[in-house]
């Protein structure tokens, strides 16, 4: 089983973690057109590659960002959302 490193709890089995999809920037609801909003709600991040994703260490409730190469099942790095504001 894969090992994922929680920024707080260190390396743990990936079965202890929950995946919550990609980190998406939300457009301003007041400014976005209906079409832009639908794009935000439904569309995904496209081809395989290094993705920034939300993950949670479920037993401790720690949420963090994982950069993962989705073409190879390789976790590149993990960090807390709050300590490193991700580029968008």
């Amino acid at each position, binding site marked *: 089983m894969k090992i994922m490193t929680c920024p707080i709890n260190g390396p743990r089995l990936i079965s202890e973690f929950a*995946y919550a999809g990609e980190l998406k920037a939300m457009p301003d609801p007041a400014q976005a057109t209906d079409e832009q909003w*639908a794009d935000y709600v439904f569309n995904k991040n496209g081809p395989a590659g290094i993705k920034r994703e939300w993950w949670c260490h479920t037993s401790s409730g720690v949420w963090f960002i994982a950069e993962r190469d989705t*073409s190879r099942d390789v976790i590149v790095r993990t960090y807390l959302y709050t300590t490193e504001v991700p580029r968008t």
Partner: protein
Amino acid sequence: MFTQHDQLKSSYDVVIIGAGGHGLAAAYYLARDHGITNVAVLEKGYIGGGNTGRNTTIIRSNYLTPEGVQFYDESVRLWQDLSQDFDLNLFYSTRGHFTLAHTDAAMRTMRWRAEVNKHFGVQSEAVDAQSVQEAVPMMDISCGGHAPVVGALYHAPGAVARHDAVAWGYGRGADRRGVEIHQKTEVLSIETTDSGSGPAVSGVMTNRGHISTKRVLCAVAGSTPRLLSMVGLTSPLYIHPLQAMVSEPVKPWLDPIIVSGSLHVYVSQTARGELVMGASLDPYELHATRSTLDFAESLSMHMLEMFPFLGDVKVVRQWAGMADMTPDFAPIMGKTSVKGFYLDSGWGTWGFKATPVCGKTMSHTVATDQPHALITGFGLDRFRRYALTGEKGAASVGH
């Protein structure tokens, strides 16, 4: 069975990307029903090597929405005649299909599906636990006491078939009608020009050279996002692995196909005697086909809850495919905003059974540049319009 073509031609009327069941079926019907034979099917790997050869071969039409039921019902009808059409035995075997319900909420969904199915003339019936026990007398319907079966959706036409043979049959039929199948041919880019009313397809670059074409059909399941990005489109598709495993052959003991959404199990026994078993999607996005031990462990655990006597039966092999999932559990098919770029995707965990009807409807769509009546509800633009299909309403496993 297939002709080898040493070189690509410089142009084709239609280029189909992906020589899985869907792509080859579209090629077959383009040639047979629409007289379009100047067609190249491009395949990065080998014929039927993707999800066509990795699924658990279940065929059924007991869906929830009118669009879904009518679409898959047409597919089942086509399936039943394919062996004779191809002069190739697909081992199409009607077994009956039980979707087990372990809660009253699941039972409500089964009734809903049964009622919609019956409305469209599809044989489905919500049955009680006793009927399940009579049909599968060896099953522990208490499921080890953890999740007693309260009833099921019984779908008599549920069937299995030899998955590889489907691709071969369509491939051979297309080949005989002049379609060129090019294996080990990877698409590197898709060229578009401005048609005045938006972009239009003009060509395809491959690792074996350039092709001019005005029509491209994309039938590549897990690779769809990459091809979409080549023409500047985005989609709600997300790719998760779907794993399966198979046992050593044993003498026939299980006739029907058994599915339990709650226990994440589906199982059938092949003509060779193997048990083919699957479960739900892997929990996170991945565009690769690696296997995991936890899959084999949890699937075996749930299998033994239903069939406790199988402890000594051995698993010989596990594998994975890449499922291209959609938010509403319905496919994404038809025309796109790029003229001449046609999409056959969003097949998630339900693509195999749709192979014939996809070929039929997509060939029509490509030949006439008009979406076939059976797929008008499945267009990519439905998300922009918030016009999702209701297939997710069933919220049961989709196999």
